[in-house]
């Protein structure tokens, strides 16, 4: 054993530093299924509290949908609990291929490969398809998992300012001599809730012979008229070369992800992507659930339509009450508070009112841009949203920020 006091002290010192910076993360224990109404134990050891969940990625309210649960049971009964294998040894069942076919059809791509998570898909894809002769040009606000994937790839990396198309074009010109170019973006940006301008990006990629990569984790299932994603919203279905997405958010919320796109790129991932080659296959129970989720979404747009209406109500209500919001039209609605401590105090006060919404601050969001990120769901009924709005207004009054501008809030609480 070499875990001496010296080693322990080093780690305790590091943990103390995290606490002192005020960024120590604590889990809150939920004693119910994921839904609009949840029962939470927080702080640890306290009595259970019934609250409305305003911060889940459960955009379509499918995490505990009876048809999905039934399908998961069927998967468990007919295909077992685990596969005890990676995909290419003995971990591919008929239902895994069925899911890959369904995702391909849903996203309007050529082929799909499943990964244990979208984090793994993003971590593995660039290394699998690029060499040192290539370049990756990414939006500066892409998700952390993409940044990890970029770090693992041998290709050169450059960035463009968030959603700045002129800057992207400059970078495409700068790297014109590279063998392959990939432009990388999120479809919906998870912290701000804005969407990438995929129509303009696709046109630029065509002009400069670059591939386009989009992470659709916060879009698949509900963005666009039939919920196919940001590429549907911007009319560029079929023009995105690589899409990654997750089954851990709107599409049932369990786990798993994929790379979907040009068939040669998917095949390269099947041959070379390390998280695919060296990690276990997705459990049959999850695969069965996601297959049914895609059936539900292909039959009807009812859930994404309800989500759209809920989102409109929520944005309108908060705006009229006098909150400062980030612009956008997605179910990610950030309520801007700017000051880190205020975001934590606001979140606590909301919890006392029966509303579960988390404050985000630096380094998760840029310095001076602390916020409460609310996420709307088709699982919310009007009474949930009305109660949540009432609580937000009450707490907003308590902290005297309603009707105040960004500058006024910063003047009162600091940045």
């Amino acid at each position, binding site marked *: 054993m070499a875990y001496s006091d010296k080693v322990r002290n080093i780690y305790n010192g590091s943990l103390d530093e995290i606490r002192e910076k005020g960024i120590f993360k604590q889990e809150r224990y939920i004693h119910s299924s994921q839904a609009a109404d949840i029962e939470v134990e927080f702080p640890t050891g306290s009595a259970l509290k019934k609250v409305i969940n305003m911060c889940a990625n459960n955009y379509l309210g499918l995490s505990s949908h009876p048809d999905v649960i039934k399908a998961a049971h069927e998967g468990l009964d007919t295909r077992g609990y685990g596969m005890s294998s990676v995909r290419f040894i003995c971990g591919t069942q008929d239902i895994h291929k069925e899911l890959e076919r369904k995702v391909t059809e849903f996203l309007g791509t050529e082929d799909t490969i499943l990964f244990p998570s979208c984090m793994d898909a993003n971590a593995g894809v660039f290394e699998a398809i690029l060499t040192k002769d290539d370049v990756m040009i990414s939006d500066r606000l892409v998700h952390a998992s993409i940044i990890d994937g970029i770090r693992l790839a041998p290709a*050169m*990396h*450059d*960035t463009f*300012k968030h959603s700045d198309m002129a800057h992207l074009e400059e*970078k495409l010109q*700068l*790297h014109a001599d590279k063998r392959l170019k990939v432009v990388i973006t999120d479809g919906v940006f998870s912290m701000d809730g804005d969407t990438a301008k995929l129509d303009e990006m696709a046109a630029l990629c065509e002009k400069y012979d670059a591939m386009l990569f989009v992470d659709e984790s916060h879009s698949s299932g509900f963005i666009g008229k039939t919920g196919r994603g940001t590429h549907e919203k911007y009319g560029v279905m079929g023009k995105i070369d690589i899409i990654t997405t997750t089954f851990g958010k709107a599409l049932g919320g369990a786990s798993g992800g994929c790379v979907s796109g040009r068939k040669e790129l998917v095949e390269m991932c099947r041959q070379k992507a390390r998280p695919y080659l060296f990690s276990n296959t997705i459990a049959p129970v999850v695969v069965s659930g996601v297959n049914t989720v895609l059936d539900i979404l292909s039959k009807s747009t009812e859930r994404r339509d309800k989500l759209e209406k809920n989102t409109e109500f929520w944005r309108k209500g908060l705006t009229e009450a006098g909150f400062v919001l980030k612009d956008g039209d997605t179910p990610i609605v950030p309520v801007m508070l700017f000051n880190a401590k205020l975001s934590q105090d606001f979140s606590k006060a909301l919890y006392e009112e029966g509303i579960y919404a988390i404050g985000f601050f630096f380094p998760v969001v840029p310095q001076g841009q602390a916020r409460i990120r609310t996420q709307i769901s088709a699982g919310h009924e009007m009474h949930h949203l009305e109660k949540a709005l009432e609580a937000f207004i009450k707490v907003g009054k308590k902290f005297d920020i309603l009707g105040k501008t960004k500058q006024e809030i910063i003047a009162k609480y600091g940045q």
Partner: protein
Amino acid sequence: MDEMKDVVLKYVINEYLEDEDEVLTYDTPLISGGIVDSFSMVSLKRFLENKYKISIPDDKATPEAFDSVTKIVKLVNEFLK
């Protein structure tokens, strides 16, 4: 030389500063000051190579050599000769 300093300064401001109020001088520490991260040095190096038709070897494109506009101009001039 001064003209090159202004070209590089303008590029760095346009490329890396998000806040319009931030002031950048020829000697502001870029990398050690957290304005340019080591990832972003790639585009700066490529910009210099394209603009001045030079080739900067990777072992010369160090964070120290890129740490201010003055240092960058000095580096570029080494390869212009």
